[in-house]
């Protein structure tokens, strides 16, 4: 001991063999220690790097010096600077015969290199040699290194040696060899799968240390495959029994506890083996009972074992006696003054509560203390417990608490988590819809930018659908209360964007619904929002759409619409917006204002956001139109398959403008846009606007399409071979779209959306079914938290899944769905299918956008759809006016009209181009009238 002390001191003084050998280095450490700022530290380190770079280039560096340099490199890297220029020297140092240098080399490389680094290959040979060394310290150093440096490819190179070492005479080596094998198993289970029996063998090692080490890999193995280790249950139990009876050498005691770390590992393994296995659990009862009796709860490590026992009991099938013992231990933890023990107590409670739900009741006060504790860790653990024990009787108290806490913290990560928990609980247990809306408002207000966008759509849907169709009165009350609460909140500064979107949507949809608020009042508020958040295009988009709805409802009900001056100026501003989306909406709004009541009503019917929509997949309502077009000389649609077969013929026709490389690489990925993968991009998702003309972007407006088509088809010819190779299968799989009549293109391509939309509605939470269960005794928090247990949480959960799927939410959208610019499936490989999936986002978003998109083009197609879809007859005037609007608004690029000759394929082509433009990241700046010109003939 004395000797060591002196060694330590000497090392510290830098007198020999230690860390700081030279004055330079001492100075470096000192100056860094004294550095006042990060900048100063960086300066010092950078100059040190320069020095080292120079020194490492000197010839004939004495080894001791080199060792110091290496240590300095390590030090530099620990401070966050790149020391890669010196890695090679560290690698060389591992080759040295001198143990000190070798160890230094190994230390440095394990810190510097990852297992896939190129330099590792230079070390493998050395490691192999060292593993065979006679000096066990060298072997240990090598074993240490392989844990970090060996990857899947190099495992076979060292595996035989490591396996040999399992029988090494030194227990320290055996231990490390086992750990190394364990590490291999973690990295690549297959490479050592044939050696797993060795772990079992080593469990019987004479040395308890080696046995203890074996428990680590066994724990992993058992957690992967419990069944094949059931035979070991009694062995583990007997080992644990022996350990607790102090059969191990005294040296294994730690704070008077016999081998506590081994005990803990054993308990963990037993928890795995006894889980759901009655007979295995029964073997454990004895030893667990002993542990509870014997454990010294005055030391930290004793409590660690106690906690592990609790955890084990919560996993196995416990006996009532053990449960009682565990509950006692928990109450001791909770009563302790130590925050650590309280934490463990709460954690244990959370585990046991699954088995015996009433256990928490006796600790209610302790739990509430923990909830009010200044210690954040403890508080969060307690919230976790509360989350686990939430039921409909206490949901209000718990969620209120959570929200208070959520408001009080700044940690965004945890805020997000707790917000999502609030939402989850509220959705699951909400006693009433009003309450739900209130909670949602709070969550949005305080963590609006952190919550998932789906939550917002859920909320909108709830408001739109209400309790169910049989109780209209309640629905309108709910909406009114939502509208009122939003009108209150709306003037508060700095609301999160998502929340404003919800507010705008609800105000637009229901703001004027029951006549309490006038249209001009609501529209004024909406204009204020658009003004106040003028940098947020999404919010603006929502606000404008809401305005449009308000005006539409006014027009439809026959009232005269006075557009407020501020609204007028807003619209004018947006007409010139850089955002196509906003511009589009503004034009739509303008167009809508010029329409008569009947047209408007069919475009935006009142409260129709939840209506069911029937989708005519064959787009049969277009048949007449097609017939007409063909009669008037249009080319019939040629399906893609045919087109690809006879390329020359495509030349005459303009449709084949899809990009050429796309033929080679576009694949199934485009066919099923996944809503989840959709980047929720504001401007794109709001309104599936037909994209502004590709021509105006890529070509001059005057350039006729035929020119470009010829070009493209020529290129296509050239790449024919490629297409043959890649293209075929994709065509086949995508033909559902292409085999339909020409004009169907739009519609078919949007089918996936519709499907996605309706399916994503299904997991609708079960608001309707929840009857208000109000806990009368809210005063006492404890009582409300723990009292009145109605149905258990799990029941709720399972039942909530079975509720009737939502009725189709979006009645309108799919009708208008043809508009969403879906790139046909054959579109290209330009990267992520952003454009494709845009329309397939959340149905609500889509709905939102679509509801409002009665723009020139949007409206017109919609009307088309309505005609033949046996919908209420719409006046043709609407089409006309829309068209006139359309041409008005597209003065910018009149040339685009020229080439359009009523071909279905043209529209498709336009779609493709739009998508292409989008995908190329071009921000389109003008409308694309071509598309609908086509459709309308």
């Amino acid at each position: 001991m004395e000797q060591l002390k002196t060694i330590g001191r000497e090392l510290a003084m830098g007198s020999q063999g230690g860390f700081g050998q030279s004055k330079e280095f001492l100075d470096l450490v000192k100056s860094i220690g004294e550095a006042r700022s990060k900048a100063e530290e960086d300066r010092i380190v950078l100059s040190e790097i320069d020095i080292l770079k120079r020194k490492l280039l000197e010839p004939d560096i004495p080894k001791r010096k080199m060792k110091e340099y290496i240590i300095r490199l390590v030090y530099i890297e620990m401070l966050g600077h790149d020391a890669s220029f010196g890695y090679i020297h560290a690698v060389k140092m591992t080759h040295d015969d001198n143990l000190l240098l070798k160890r230094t080399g190994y230390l440095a490389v394990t810190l510097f290199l990852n297992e896939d680094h190129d330099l590792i290959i230079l070390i493998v040979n050395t490691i192999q040699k060292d593993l065979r060394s006679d000096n066990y310290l060298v072997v240990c150093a090598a074993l240490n290194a392989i844990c970090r440096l060996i990857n899947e490819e190099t495992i076979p190179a060292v595996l035989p040696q490591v396996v040999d070492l399992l029988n090494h005479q030194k227990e320290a080596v055996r231990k490390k060899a086992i750990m190394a094998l364990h590490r291999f198993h973690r990295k690549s289970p297959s490479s050592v799968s044939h050696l797993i029996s060795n772990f079992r063998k080593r469990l019987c090692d004479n040395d308890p240390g080696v046995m203890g080490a074996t428990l680590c890999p066994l724990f992993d193995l058992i957690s992967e495959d419990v069944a094949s280790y059931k035979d070991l249950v009694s062995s583990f139990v007997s080992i644990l029994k022996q350990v607790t009876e102090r059969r191990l050498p005294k040296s294994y005691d730690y704070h008077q506890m016999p081998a506590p770390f081994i005990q803990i590992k054993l308990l963990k393994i037993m928890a795995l083996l006894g889980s759901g296995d009655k007979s295995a659990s029964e073997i454990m009862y004895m030893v667990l009972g002993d542990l509870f009796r014997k454990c010294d709860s005055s030391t930290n490590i004793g409590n660690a074992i106690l906690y592990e026992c609790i955890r084990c009991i919560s996993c196995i099938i416990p006996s009532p006696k053990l449960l009682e013992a565990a509950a006692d231990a928990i109450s001791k933890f909770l009563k302790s003054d130590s925050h650590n023990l309280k934490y463990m107590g709460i954690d244990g409670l959370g585990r046991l509560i699954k088995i015996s739900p009433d256990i928490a009741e006796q600790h209610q006060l302790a739990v509430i203390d923990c909830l009010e504790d200044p210690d954040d860790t403890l508080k969060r653990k307690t919230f976790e417990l509360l989350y686990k024990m939430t039921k409909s009787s206490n949901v209000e108290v718990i969620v209120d608490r959570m929200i208070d806490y959520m408001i009080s913290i700044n940690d965004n990560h945890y805020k997000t988590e707790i917000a999502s928990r609030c939402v989850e609980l509220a959705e699951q247990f909400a006693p009433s819809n009003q309450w739900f809306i209130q909670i949602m408002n709070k969550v949005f207000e305080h963590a609006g930018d952190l919550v998932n966008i789906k939550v917002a759509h859920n909320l909108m849907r709830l408001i739109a659908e209400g309790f169910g169709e049989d109780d209209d009165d309640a629905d309108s009350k709910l909406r009114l209360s939502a509208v009122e609460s939003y009108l209150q909140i709306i003037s508060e500064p700095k609301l999160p964007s998502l929340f404003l979107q919800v507010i705008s949507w609800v105000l637009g949809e229901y703001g004027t619904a029951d006549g309490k608020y006038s249209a001009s009042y609501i529209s004024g508020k909406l204009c204020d929002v658009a003004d106040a958040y003028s940098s947020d295009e999404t919010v603006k988009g929502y606000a404008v759409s809401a305005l449009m709805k308000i005006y539409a409802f006014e027009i439809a009900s026959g009232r005269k619409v006075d557009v407020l001056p501020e609204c007028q100026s807003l619209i004018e501003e947006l007409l010139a917006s850089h955002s196509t989306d906003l511009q589009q909406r503004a034009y739509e709004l303008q167009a809508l204002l010029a329409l008569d009541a009947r047209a408007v009503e069919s475009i935006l019917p009142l409260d129709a956001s939840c209506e069911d929509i029937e989708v005519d997949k064959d787009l049969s309502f277009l048949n007449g139109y097609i017939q007409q077009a063909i009669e008037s000389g249009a080319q019939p649609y040629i399906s893609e398959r045919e087109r690809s077969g006879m390329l020359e013929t495509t030349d005459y026709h303009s449709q084949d403008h899809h990009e050429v490389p796309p033929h080679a690489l576009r694949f199934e990925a485009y066919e099923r846009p996944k809503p989840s993968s959709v980047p929720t991009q504001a401007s794109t998702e709001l309104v599936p606007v037909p994209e502004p003309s590709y021509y105006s972007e890529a070509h001059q407006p005057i350039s006729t399409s035929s020119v470009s088509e010829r070009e493209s088809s020529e290129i296509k010819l050239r790449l024919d071979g490629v297409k043959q190779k890649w293209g075929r299968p994709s065509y086949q799989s995508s033909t559902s779209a292409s085999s339909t009549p020409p004009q169907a293109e739009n519609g078919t391509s949007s089918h996936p959306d519709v499907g996605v939309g309706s399916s994503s509605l299904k997991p609708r939470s079960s608001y309707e079914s929840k009857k208000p269960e109000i806990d009368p005794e809210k005063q006492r928090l404890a009582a409300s938290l723990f009292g009145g247990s109605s149905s258990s949480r799990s029941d709720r959960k399972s039942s909530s899944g079975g509720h009737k799927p939502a009725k189709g939410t979006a009645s309108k959208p799919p009708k208008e769905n043809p508009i969403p610019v879906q790139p046909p499936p054959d579109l290209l490989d330009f990267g992520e299918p952003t454009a494709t999936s845009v329309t397939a986002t959340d149905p609500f978003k889509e709905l939102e956008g679509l509801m409002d998109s009665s723009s020139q083009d949007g409206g017109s197609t919609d009307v088309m759809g309505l005609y033949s879809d046996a919908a209420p007859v719409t006046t043709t005037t609407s089409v006309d006016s829309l068209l006139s609007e359309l041409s008005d608004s597209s003065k910018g690029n009149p040339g685009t009209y020229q080439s359009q000759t009523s071909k279905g394929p043209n529209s498709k082509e336009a779609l493709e181009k739009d998508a292409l433009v989008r995908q190329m990241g071009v921000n389109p700046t003008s409308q694309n009238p071509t598309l609908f010109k086509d459709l309308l003939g």
Partner: protein
Amino acid sequence: MIKAVMMMNTQGKPRLAKFYDFLPVEKQQELIRGVFSVLSSRPENVSNFLEIDSLFGPDSRLVYKHYATLYFVLVFDGSENELAMLDLIQVLVETLDKCFSNVCELDIVFNYSKLHTVLDEIVFGGQVLETRTDEVMKAVEEISKLEAASNSISLVPKSVSGWRGGR
């Protein structure tokens, strides 16, 4: 499994950082800074545990202990026991204390490689290998002896042109 062992002083300067899975240097620094900013904001007399998913990914816990000017930090996953990890820090500190008799920050700064030797004896590849202070001491002692012996031989500076030429 233990994910990382760190020591840092109360100013946030790292004194030791060992990650059992490779992380690029920048990421290491980010984590060290992140851990320090959490630790330094913790009041006294609170628990030694932290759930630290935000830095180390899901199911990450952290146990720390504050000794004089140093924080000892262990980061690990759900398969370890928090209280036991707290004791592991205790083992580490006790061992260092025996090594350096009354260990202080300075010892740790100037004995970087020895520090690693001690740590490697206790935690091996992310698993707890040895918790008996005496055993660790014995191992470290043997290494030190051997190093001292081999060191005295190599005190005579040798030409290293041979392995420089190998580049």
